[in-house]
């Protein structure tokens, strides 16, 4: 099958830097958008799992015993500021200002690393206070969701470090504005996911205790059933 007549395979040259596309959107940028759409469902499923099990832990520590909203507010602020630094980095790359690009990317990396530092501190503190991965439903869902978010941030940091190295080695125009733009899309997405996580796990779920009478899911269905009766 598909024995393309390879003896006539044409010789190749380096392609033009950006190929023409049907929509005018670059292939890689479109790929990133599609990936982010897919990643929404990934985080959506993890968040749904957390919400289903919210307030269902039979043994403590419960969120109200352990969640520290003020300190995570600081780390949230740091991460949001990193998005600002990223925007400035993208603008510098578009303007071809290599020096500014490196500065802003480094700033983004430092802020992202501080956020990860907060997360490491928080995970370790929880462990010391007796909340291990296998302790209860809260710990399993919390560590899985925030852990995968942290992994996304870490991957983003690795990506940004690569961009800084490329920029430092190539004073003339690499990485392109598009390269930085795509990394920026990813970085902003990860930040937006954190806003949702912070709201649901800290601001709303951070004060949960042991299960109340009646399963939350049952209560939910009873409420829906009430609408129809």
């Amino acid at each position, binding site marked *: *099958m*598909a*024995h*393309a*007549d*390879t*003896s*006539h*395979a*044409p*010789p*190749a*040259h*380096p*392609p033009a830097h950006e190929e023409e*596309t*049907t*929509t005018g*959107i670059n*292939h890689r940028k*479109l*790929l990133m958008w*599609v*990936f982010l*759409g*897919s*990643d929404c*469902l*990934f985080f*959506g*499923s*993890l968040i749904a*799992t957390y919400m*289903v*099990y919210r307030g*269902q*832990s*039979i*043994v403590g520590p419960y969120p109200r015993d352990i969640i520290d909203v003020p300190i995570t507010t600081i780390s949230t602020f740091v991460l949001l500021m990193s998005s600002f630094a990223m925007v400035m980095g993208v603008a510098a790359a578009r303007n071809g200002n290599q020096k500014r690009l490196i500065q802003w990317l480094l700033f983004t990396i430092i802020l992202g690393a501080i956020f990860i530092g907060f997360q490491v501190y928080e995970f370790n503190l929880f462990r010391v206070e007796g909340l291990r*991965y*296998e302790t*209860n*439903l809260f*710990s*399993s*869902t919390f560590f*899985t969701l925030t852990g*995968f978010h942290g992994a996304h941030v870490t991957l983003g940091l690795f990506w940004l*470090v*690569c961009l800084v*190295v*490329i920029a430092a080695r190539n004073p003339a125009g690499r990485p392109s504005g598009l390269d930085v733009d795509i990394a920026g899309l990813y970085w902003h997405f990860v930040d937006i996911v954190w806003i949702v996580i912070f709201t649901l796990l800290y601001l709303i779920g951070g004060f949960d205790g042991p*299960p109340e009478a009646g399963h939350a*899911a049952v209560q939910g*269905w009873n409420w*829906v*059933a009430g609408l*129809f009766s």
Partner: protein
Amino acid sequence: MVTITGVIPRPTTYTGLWSWLTTVDHKRIGALYGFSAFFFFIVGGIEAGIMRVQLATSDNSVVSADWFNAMFTMHGTTMIFMVIMPFGATFFNFLVPLMIGARDVAFPRLNAFSYWTFLFGALLMHSGFLIGQVPDAGWFSYANLTAAPFSEGKGLDFWALSLQVLGVASLAAGFNFIVTIINMRAPGMSLMRMPVFVWMTLVTSILLVLAFPIITVALIELTADRQFGANFFNTAAGGDPILWQHLFWLFGHPEVYILILPAMGVVSEIIPTFSRKPLFGYPVVVFSGVVIAIMSWAVWSHHMFTVGLGPIANSVFTITTMLIAVPTGVKIFNWVGTMWNGSIDLKTPMLMAIGFVALFVVGGLSGVSHAVSPSDFQQQDTYYIVAHIHYVLFGGAIFGIFSGIYYWYPKMTGKMYHETLGKVHFWLMFVGMNLTFFPMHYAGLNGMPRRIYTYAEGFGWEGMNLLATIGYFVIVISLLVFIHNFFRSIKRGEPAGNDPWDAPTLEWSISSPPPAYNFAEIPVVRGQDPFWITKREAAARGEPITQGEAHVDPSTIHMPSPSYWPLVASFGVVWLAGGFLIDVGWDYIRFPVAIVGGLITIIGVIGWSNEPATAEHHATGEHH
């Protein structure tokens, strides 16, 4: 950053084993997908055969109950994830760039990565057989059957981690085809001029990238429970096994359409060609496909009618499930409408396509019968469901796939298959399929449960089961005819020529098999069924159709160069998954081993991004 290039020189050959390992040509990757899928079709078929032999008579003891559990688990998993999906990928790969007038997919190396990751994941899953650790909790692996205390050994870990690897492959392929179809269409190929097959590929790919993250999360939770003591499905800690069912079927129902939509796309190409008429109601067929994809997200709980979700949930999902039958039925009418008053040519692809329509209607009707939740209470977990799913996936997807194999065989190989042998294959498979699965309706309505390894005599199930087992062997004979026809025709088939069927789509306008660059001159599309337009206009002018090579020197076309980095990255991914399967009594060994796999992946990705898509030394290389 370390520059990782030149550890091994970049491959430059286009022949031999190394060229297949490093190929980024979508046609060759399609061929690799096709042969791999057929290999696993045989594996899954043998698994089915073991079950059919065991069930041929009452109180049989060919296999043990445990082995039977392993067989139905692996049969379902293999046929869905390692046969029908990669057969779909075969057609996506081979056809999409040809049909939209492109030279390759948007990301040729990502495409190679998808294939190798798929192959390694499938091999990882089956490598459990070598050490006697076979998954045995059904292809749906309901919690908490899968919890460590109830499923000892590594079988379920093989299942979960291999599926995770297969998911990576499917996601990468989904991203690639979405970008390819949206962004690489030839001038004039607007969305509503795309062949229906390309539309269905787009819809399927969107479903893929949205559905697979859900099973990814479910598998992460299952793996966390089994390996790291998490509580997701641990009822003792308050966990809810129903959560698994929701996550699994929220993925699983779109997955059903991921399996069937490519086959619907295939027959939507074949029926017009052999009816000598454009597809009846093209926009309606496209729209129905899109509606099916959207509605597939609102029907998952019909797999859970007997769980006890309550009358409101059951009513809602009864209604949505009956509604989704409407766009499916619309498509059936469109195919029938296409054949109506056409001059039908009953070649093998057309027979297979008509077989698809007929058998899919049977499966669809039985599907509507258990869309009604009270009726489903009678049918749940009986052979009636087994009959339904096989009418949809064997009568539907597999007939569609064979229809496509026969139809594009001349384009893929440059040779014609043997028509009589093809028809023998069709009739044997059609009879065998109905002999196997039709009696299951009766066995099921007579109360025969699914997934039992044997049954006592006297329930009246013996006759139906014996018929089904005979039917299985008729299918086996039909497939032997197919295999003979396939390889015989590669060697001794008649040369096919560019356009043996007088077909409407662009892939038939170039030579068979197509050259590596596909189109010497990118075609300009001026309507639906573009090659019919070209031929009609050429005939009106009384001129022959000219090939692009007449205007363009192919040696000036730049194609992506082969690369071994996708292979390295895929190998890292499967090593990463395999690391968690190591069982030497000391659990902490899993992490360092898995991290090595992660590092291999990172090295692969860095090497990949450091090499240009097209190697420079090719410009002055030995190729003329």
